[in-house]
């Protein structure tokens, strides 16, 4: 039988990564001074599972590495080894190392063990030399020696005396099955000794009263014989002797059990024996001539199975794990939908006007079912934010030791759920913000003490739902933003004018402007001033916002607001002629009616509207999409001013319609990608409306500008 093990690889990788996560979390919670043994046990179990799996699926590099790790953890678990901060560090490094190995294997890349040799050596060192490895080698050598020492002779056979303890059956071991195993090695003769058998009335059927003398008429290795009795070696007296076949036959026939002198006690030795071979050996003799059967065959198969290793490894498509509850609720809802459908179907069979009321009820129910179903399906994509939050304890630990700061991390609301895609993209901005809080926010312990604060700073991550959004707060009790310094810097960089009078809050938001960094010394932690603006841009591209509140000397709070999902968008419907478009609500600054004389024409057909301090370029949507608009005069249209990445643009539209949540359908999968359009949606009346992509629209505008300039020149 050949089974392709690669089909289990994906599951193995997933659970191994989960296991590493568990190890990491528990290692971080491991206080050397006082810890729960169960924590160490959990870590051990995770490593143990990874080891077992990797060995089974032939990832030897991982298996060997985890073996060392496991030995160390086992010592910790048994209390042979003290838990120390140094040890925890080493183990955390090992977790990283394994994660890297597994990632490579998952991507079908080779793993070079030499890379990990240093860490392996450190671990081995910790364990105390190569004790284990050398012991194993020694063991193997002993076996070989025994085999070699056996003299070469013709017609050698094995004599076995097997005296099981009486309760042997209670471990599920059955002597007859062992004889069957022996029969696979060669011809077997068995003589049972039933002297100990009590009469039926006294007999306890759960006990084994017999003992056996067995001849195996084949010159096999002793280990093969021993292997048959391996599981019961501690529950029986076993004598195994290699002698000439004639001698073995003689022993079997004789009443003398001298072969067992070293182990037999008086009682057994004095017992007389009867030959009952015919009865008890019956089932065995049936199967005796099977010598050349199963075993060698199986070995052949084994060979081919391992050489098949080049088989394609399961591809790692993006997958999602969904809790059973969610799937159950989905199935439940689909069930209700089917009931409603069949009810409506029945009504349709012989419909008359009297049933109108019931039809209406049915339709209301259908609507409700559909809505619930939609919500439920959306739920499937939702994962708890702990997926991201979980990486922070480790990060804070590493960072604070690097920055020589004392920081405590508090995580609140880690079960708050978030769309998987949003989750994947919010990770990096969050990491950046947390780093920033540690680097710029939390002060050094001396400074904190001098300011009358506890030496240990605190960073809190808080996630919660608010309306259709998820809000993530990063709160630190550090120095806060130095308003004067930010203002001075902003003026220096030309971000604001010297005379501009801004509220403190507005000044704080300036840190999100491109090219802004106030760190007195650029550290390797927060980078080189390419940060906050990128964070803001990334969050905006997810349809979210970020802002900061800060109190000097008290700390800062960064608040990120994100839509729960990227599959649904809060949109403003706009109309141009007969066409309806959707503008993402979050990008709209304001919508205004303008006058023709407020518009300045630049370079031919390119117009700009002066909105207070800003000059907003105007994009005539009817031109862009070549549709016929109701109005082409500015005084009759509405200007929808949108902003992305600090740049504003005004859309000229005929009418503002409703605001509503729209489901985004990909244009790329259904048609082709078009610059300036992020997708489409289907409106209530079945019409398709395009969703405008503001960034893309800006690009279009720039292109329009440059091509116009080209024309003018």
């Amino acid at each position: 039988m050949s089974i392709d093990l690669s089909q289990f690889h994906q599951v193995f990788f997933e659970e191994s990564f989960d296991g590493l996560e568990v190890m990491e979390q528990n290692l971080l919670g491991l206080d050397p001074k006082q810890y729960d043994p169960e924590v160490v046990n959990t870590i051990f179990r995770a490593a143990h599972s990874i080891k077992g799996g990797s060995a089974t699926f032939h990832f030897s590099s991982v298996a060997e590495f985890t073996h060392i790790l496991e030995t160390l953890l086992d010592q910790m678990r048994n209390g042979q080894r003290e838990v120390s901060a140094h040890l925890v560090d080493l183990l955390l490094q090992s977790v990283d190392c394994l994660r890297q190995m597994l990632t490579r294997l998952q991507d079908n890349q080779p793993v070079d063990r030499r890379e990990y040799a240093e860490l392996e050596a450190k671990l081995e060192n910790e364990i105390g030399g190569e004790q284990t490895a050398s012991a194993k080698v020694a063991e193997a050598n002993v076996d070989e020696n025994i085999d070699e020492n056996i003299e070469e002779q013709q017609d050698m056979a094995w004599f076995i005396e097997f005296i099981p303890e009486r309760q042997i059956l209670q471990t599920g071991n059955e002597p007859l099955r062992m004889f069957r195993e022996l029969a696979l090695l060669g011809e077997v003769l068995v003589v049972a000794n039933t002297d100990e058998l009590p009469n039926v009335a006294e007999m306890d059927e759960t006990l084994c009263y017999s003992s056996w003398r067995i001849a195996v008429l084949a010159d096999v290795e002793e280990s093969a014989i021993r292997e048959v009795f391996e599981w019961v070696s501690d529950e029986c007296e076993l004598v195994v002797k290699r002698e000439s076949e004639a001698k073995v036959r003689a022993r079997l026939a004789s009443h003398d059990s001298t072969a067992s002198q070293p182990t037999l006690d008086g009682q057994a030795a004095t017992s007389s024996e009867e030959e009952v071979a015919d009865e008890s050996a019956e089932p065995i003799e049936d199967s005796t001539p099977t010598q050349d059967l199963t075993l060698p065959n199986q070995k052949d198969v084994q060979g081919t199975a391992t050489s098949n290793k080049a088989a394609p490894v399961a591809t790692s498509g993006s997958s999602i794990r969904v809790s059973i509850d969610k799937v159950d609720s989905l199935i439940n809802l689909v069930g209700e939908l089917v009931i409603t459908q069949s009810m409506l179907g029945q009504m349709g069979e012989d419909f008359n006007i009297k049933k109108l009321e019931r039809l209406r009820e049915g339709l209301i129910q259908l609507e409700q079912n559909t809505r619930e179903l939609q919500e439920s399906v959306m739920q499937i994509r939702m994962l708890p934010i702990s997926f991201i939050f979980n990486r922070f304890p480790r990060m804070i630990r590493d960072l604070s030791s690097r920055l020589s700061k004392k920081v405590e991390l508090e995580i609140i609301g880690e079960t708050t759920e978030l769309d998987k895609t949003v989750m994947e993209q919010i990770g990096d901005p969050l990491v950046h913000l947390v780093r920033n809080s540690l680097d710029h926010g939390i002060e050094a312990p001396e400074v904190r003490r001098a300011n009358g604060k506890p030496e240990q700073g605190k960073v809190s991550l808080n996630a919660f739902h608010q309306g259709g959004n998820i809000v993530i707060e990063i709160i630190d009790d550090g120095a806060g933003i130095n308003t004067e310094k930010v203002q001075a810097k902003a003026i220096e960089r030309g971000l604001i004018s010297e005379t501009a009078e801004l509220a403190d809050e507005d000044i704080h938001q300036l840190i999100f402007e491109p090219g802004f960094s106030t760190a007195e010394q650029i550290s390797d932690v927060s980078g080189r001033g390419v940060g906050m603006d990128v964070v803001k841009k990334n969050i905006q591209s997810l349809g979210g916002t970020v802002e900061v509140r800060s109190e000097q000397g008290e700390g800062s709070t960064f608040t990120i607001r994100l839509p729960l999902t990227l599959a649904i968008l809060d949109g403003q419907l706009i109309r141009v002629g007969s066409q309806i478009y959707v503008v993402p609500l979050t990008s709209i600054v304001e919508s205004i009616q303008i006058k023709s004389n407020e518009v300045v024409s630049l370079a031919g057909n390119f117009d700009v509207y002066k909105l207070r301090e800003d000059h907003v370029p105007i994009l005539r949507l009817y031109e862009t999409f070549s549709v016929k608009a109701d109005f082409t005069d500015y005084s009759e249209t509405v200007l929808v001013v949108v902003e992305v990445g600090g740049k504003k643009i005004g859309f000229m539209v005929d009418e503002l319609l409703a605001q509503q949540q729209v489901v985004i359908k990909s244009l790329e999968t259904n048609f082709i990608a078009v610059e300036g359009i992020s997708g489409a949606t289907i409106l209530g009346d079945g019409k398709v409306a395009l969703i405008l992509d503001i960034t893309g629209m800006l690009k279009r505008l720039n292109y329009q500008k440059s091509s116009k300039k080209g024309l003018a020149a």
Partner: protein
Amino acid sequence: MTKILAVDDSSSMRQMVSFTLKSAGFDVDDAPDGQQALKLAQSNQYDVVISDVNMPVMDGITLVKNLRQMGNYKFTPILMLTTESAGDKKMEGKQAGATGWIVKPFNPDQLVATVNKVLG
């Protein structure tokens, strides 16, 4: 048909064991820990139980002890999945009443061979 109960907290191992044994023509149920295995064993009669040692909630050793106390599992072959480093675990398993063990790593053929060894 021979019914086997496979117990392991690692789902890849569990899947591999189940799949292998099913391919060999056995009827297989599985459980992620001792407690759930015990529940299954109470409502079904299995001919062989194969269990990992280290598991959360209830480990393999405790599972064996519990199974042996149930009337209809007195003589049922119970195999432990162990690793070679856990030599003392083998004995601990035996003392709890396990029939024998399968040493990890094992390949599908070894698994089927070992199961056949305890059947019949």
